[in-house]
Each structure stands twice: as structure tokens, then as C-alpha cells.
């Protein structure tokens, strides 16, 4: 009898443990993955904002995916194909190229201004159609050169295909900006790219090498293998601060404006979307936006965010008035077709 009572006591305790206690235990954490760019202080502000957010939201876990858009974006498309409701990345930073490719692939969620009230302070030129992402800053592309070996730096984009610079030019293999610039400066456009291909196929020998990483680009310029390259002010400034003998010129035709955006990826759960919205709103606070821009040598997107003097010295916001704004939507649609032509008409003649 006593044994039976003891047994029923033990069973009751076990049942309590199994069915009642979990109700009072902590709920499962909501997990998100945020994309940030690697290096050049890109991760400082996002990490600070997320750290602050997690202090007040202990049930949230955010993992950072640190890479570049070129490598990560195809993986996001692969994940979307495998399971549209389980994205690889839930939100984060995407440049204008990836943002436009995402439009083609239906990758982004429209952002809700009611839930991200700081969106209304973003400069109108950095809003995206249908609120598929929101601008976070602008970097600019100009001409970088080796200061030790180039006495008279070029002041025009046309130097890239000018025979004077035979075998002295380098840029990224997947970067179609030089192609589009050649088209635009020779009577074409993104929608009429033939003049660009003509110029580059005739002057393919200008290209010393096409690179696939920032390190390669820097090595080629610093070693003197190549002398000029189209690249970003922000990255050039970091290299200059490291002591690399590199100078930078804003071409007379204007720098190429290169906006960056914050995006939320389709397929995220309502809870993940809410958290991403809250963090994006916090990132868009003027003080965070200004700090990000100062640390990465870019121009902030939010009205009221102060532009640091260190940034003004290399990238005066007035430059953006005369900047070249490319048609990235067309470029995203034609990128693959252009790559095939680029391999046949330019790379095979290098």
C-alpha cells in the first residue's frame, strides 16, 4: 500500500515535470541572421546597435553573416529556391547592385514606414520603389592611382580605355561600371550598351588584370603592376591610412554614386520581421547613421545626420550633385547577357 502511494507520488512529480514546468520555462529564442559587409569598419555600428537591442530583448538571438554581396547573394537565391520560407539571411546591408538583383528575384519585403518611423527622415533620393529597402548611405567611385609611379594622374573616366594606359588598368571582373561609363561617354547608355563594348573590345589590352578581391586590387596598384583603377573613396581612404601609396581623383565627368540599402528578406516570419524592423529603425537614428558614415567614409542617408569633417575632405556631398547615377535596374536585368559578351568581346582580347 505504502509502495503504491510512493509510486503515485513519483508519477505525479514526473507528470508535473513533463507537462507543467515547460509552460513556466523561458520561451524559445527568435533567431535571425543579419548580413553585414566584412572589414573597413562596416560591422562596428550594426554590432553596437544589435548589442544594445539584445540587452532589452533577451529572447532574441542575432547571428552576423559577414561577407560581400557578390558571394552571398547567389547563396540567398539558392536558399530561396530550396525553401522560400527559410531565408539564409533575414535582413541587413545590400548595395544598389544586389538590391536591384533582389527586385528581379522578388527577394525583398516592402518596408512599412509605420513600423520603421525613422524611414521618413531618409533623403528622398535614397528611397526605393515600393519601399523595397531603405537607403543607409552613399559611397562614391572615382579613379585610384599609384602616387609613386603616376606623376600626372588622369582626370577623366576615359583614361580607363585611353591607349596611353595600355596594360596599366585594373578593376573587378564582375564590375560593369567601366563598361557602362564607356557606353555613356561614347553615345550609349545602359539600354544601348554596344558603344561600351566597342570601346572596350578595341582597348582590351589596357587591362593588366581583372581581379576578384580588394586585396588583389591593392596589391596590383601598390606593386605597380597596374597604375589606375576605378574604385571607392571609402576603401581608398582605408588603404591610404594604412600607408599605401595610393591617390584618388574625382573624374571631371563626376563620381559614380553608389548607394547602400537596408533590406528585409521575404520568407522571414512575422516575429523576425518585427525584430528586423526595430533594428533597422534604430540603425536609421541620426546618431547611428552619422557614426556609420564617419567610420566608413561615406555620406549618411538620414536628414540631420552630421557629415564628419574627415568625410567632407574626401567626399564632399556637393560632389553628389554632379555624380553619375547609373540605371542599376537595367544593369541587374542584363548582367548575365553582358557577362557573356564581356568574355567573348573583351576578355578574349586582353
Amino acid at each position, binding site marked *: 500500500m505504502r509502495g503504491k502511494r510512493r509510486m503515485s507520488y513519483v508519477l505525479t512529480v514526473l507528470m508535473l515535470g513533463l507537462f507543467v514546468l515547460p509552460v513556466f520555462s523561458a520561451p524559445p529564442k527568435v533567431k535571425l541572421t543579419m548580413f553585414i559587409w566584412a572589414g573597413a569598419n562596416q560591422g562596428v555600428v550594426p554590432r553596437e546597435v544589435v548589442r544594445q537591442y539584445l540587452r532589452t530583448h533577451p529572447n532574441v538571438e542575432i547571428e552576423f553573416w559577414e561577407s560581400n554581396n*557578390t*558571394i552571398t*547573394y*547567389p547563396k540567398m*537565391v539558392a536558399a530561396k529556391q530550396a525553401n522560400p520560407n527559410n531565408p539564409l539571411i533575414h535582413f541587413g546591408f545590400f548595395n544598389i547592385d544586389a538590391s536591384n*538583383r533582389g527586385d*528581379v*528575384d522578388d527577394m525583398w519585403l516592402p518596408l512599412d514606414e509605420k513600423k520603421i518611423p525613422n524611414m521618413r527622415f531618409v533623403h528622398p533620393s535614397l528611397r526605393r520603389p515600393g519601399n523595397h529597402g531603405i537607403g543607409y548611405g552613399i559611397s562614391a567611385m572615382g579613379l585610384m592611382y599609384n602616387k609613386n609611379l603616376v606623376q600626372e594622374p588622369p582626370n577623366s573616366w576615359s583614361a580607363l580605355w585611353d591607349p596611353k594606359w595600355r596594360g596599366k588598368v585594373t578593376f573587378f*571582373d*564582375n564590375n560593369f561600371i567601366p563598361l557602362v561609363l564607356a557606353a555613356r561617354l561614347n553615345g550609349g547608355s545602359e539600354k544601348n550598351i554596344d558603344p561600351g563594348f566597342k570601346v572596350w573590345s578595341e582597348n582590351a589590352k589596357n*587591362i*593588366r*588584370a*581583372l*581581379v*576578384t578581391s580588394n586585396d*588583389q586590387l591593392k*596589391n596590383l596598384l601598390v*606593386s*605597380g*603592376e597596374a597604375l589606375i583603377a576605378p574604385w571607392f573613396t571609402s576603401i581608398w581612404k582605408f588603404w591610404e591610412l594604412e600607408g599605401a601609396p595610393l591617390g584618388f581623383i574625382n573624374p571631371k565627368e563626376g563620381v559614380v554614386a553608389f548607394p547602400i540599402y537596408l533590406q528585409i528578406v521575404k520568407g522571414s516570419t512575422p516575429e523576425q520581421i518585427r525584430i528586423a524592423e526595430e533594428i533597422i529603425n534604430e540603425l536609421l537614428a541620426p546618431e547611428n547613421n552619422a557614426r556609420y558614415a564617419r567610420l566608413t567614409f561615406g555620406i549618411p542617408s538620414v536628414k540631420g545626420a552630421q557629415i564628419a569633417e574627415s568625410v567632407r575632405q574626401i567626399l564632399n556631398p556637393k560632389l553628389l550633385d554632379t555624380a553619375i547615377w547609373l540605371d542599376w535596374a537595367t544593369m*541587374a*536585368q*542584363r*548582367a*548575365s547577357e553582358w*557577362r*557573356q559578351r564581356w*568574355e*567573348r568581346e573583351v*576578355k*578574349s582580347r*586582353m
Partner: protein
Amino acid sequence: MRIQGLLAVWFLAPALGIMTIFYLIPLGVYLLNGFHLFQSGKIVPIWTLRTFGSFFQDPFSYRVIGTSLSLSTVVTLLDVALGYPIAYALHTRVKSPGIRALIGLLLFSPLLVSVVVRTYGWFILLANQGLINALLKNAGIISQPLPLLFNTWGVIISLAHILLPFSIFPIYSIMTRMDPTLKEAARDLGANWWKAFTQITLPLTMPGVITAILICFTLALSAFVTPQLLGGGRIQVLPLTVYNNTVEINWPTGAVAGFTLLLLSITAIWIINAILRRLPSI
């Protein structure tokens, strides 16, 4: 002991399972994209052979295939030509096991370093301002730097270096299994070194040579990092076509190029295995 029946299945199951889950299924899923279409920056999920058609009707594809095959052939021949004498010397001339192990480690060492690091090492050596050109210039042999980087030669030199251990070790391994009395008997019967080498050593070590060819050729055919970093965009081979199309989300064309690469590798393996079967075994 010969393992047969159910036991053999159990022994093979883990390896087959891993291969199926982590290799065959992902590969199959990717290759299926070849039966879709890519239009206006998007994959159109209709079942069609049009991507295969446009790939194989394009003369540029054959140029890329030709570059891949010729590059792999040259690298393989270079590796076997360099690897055989090294393996022979290691087997016949180096008597001390300690020194042999040390040389073996030295020869093996390229494989202990990441391919990216090795390739950057070649960049430092082959650049216009690199070590080789600087030495030749200082010695008064050249006045202008030799174009060693960002062209076919740079890629061939680097790939041949990277793959050299894959040539030396199979040949060396087969040499160690050779019956030394055969060579001695030939010499006793009056054959000189050359005759003994061409009629005894070389035929008996051919399985090692063929294995070296197989490994070097397939690895060179699928090499990606070296052609990309040291080719500087000039060397267009099939693995780069797969990569570039994958990055552009043009997976249908990437899949067709991948399928072609796979077919070439399988064909090479099949031919080489057929040759191996006809060779005398040691």
C-alpha cells in the same frame, strides 16, 4: 580476407551515404538547372533543352573547352616529365631513410599550404616587379620584364607546381613495389642501364605514371583558384564559366558548363582506366 554480401554493403554504407547526401544530391539538383532557361536576369523554371542547345552551338564554348583541355594536358605532361625523374632519384639514389623522408616531406609541402597562399606566392615570384624578373634584370639577361603573370604560362607554372606531388607519389609508390631482382637479372644478362630502364623499370612503373596522369589531369581540369588569380581574366576555363554563371544567377548555363566538365572528367577517367587495365601488373 574478402568481404562479401550484406557485410560489404554495411561497410560501404557510410561512404555511400555521405557521397549521396553531400555530393550526388546537391550536384543533381544543380545540374537539373541546365534543363531550365535564363531570361532577363531570372531563371525560368520550364523544362527545356534550349540552354544545352545554345551552349553547344556557341563556338566560344568550344574555345573554353579547348583551353581547359590543353591547359590540363600541358600541366599533366609537365608534371609527369618532372615527377618521374624525381621519383626515380628518390627511389634509387637516396639511400638514407631519414633523408628520403625529409625530401618526401619537402615535396609534399605544397599541399600543406592553402592554394590561395601558394598562388599569391607565385604572384610575388612572377610579377613584372617580381623576384624572377628582378633577378634576370639585375643579371643583365633581360632589359624588359618577361610576361610571366596573367597569362597562360603563369597559370601552367603554378598549376604544375601545385600538382607535382600528385605525380611524384604514385610513381614512387609503384617503384617501391617493384621486385629489385628483375633489374639485377637484366644487368647480369648484359643489359646496360638504359636497356634495363626502358625494358624493365619503365614498363613496370607505367601503372604509376598512368595514375599520376589521371590525378593531375582531372585536378588541372577542375582547377579554379589558380586560373582565376594568376590568369587575371585572360584564362577562360570551364570551372570559371561555372563560377561566373553561378554568381550571375545564370544557373542554367552554369549547370550545362558543369555537366560538360563532369563529362570530360569521367571520359578522361574511363580512358585512363582502360589503358591501366591493359598494362602489366607488378
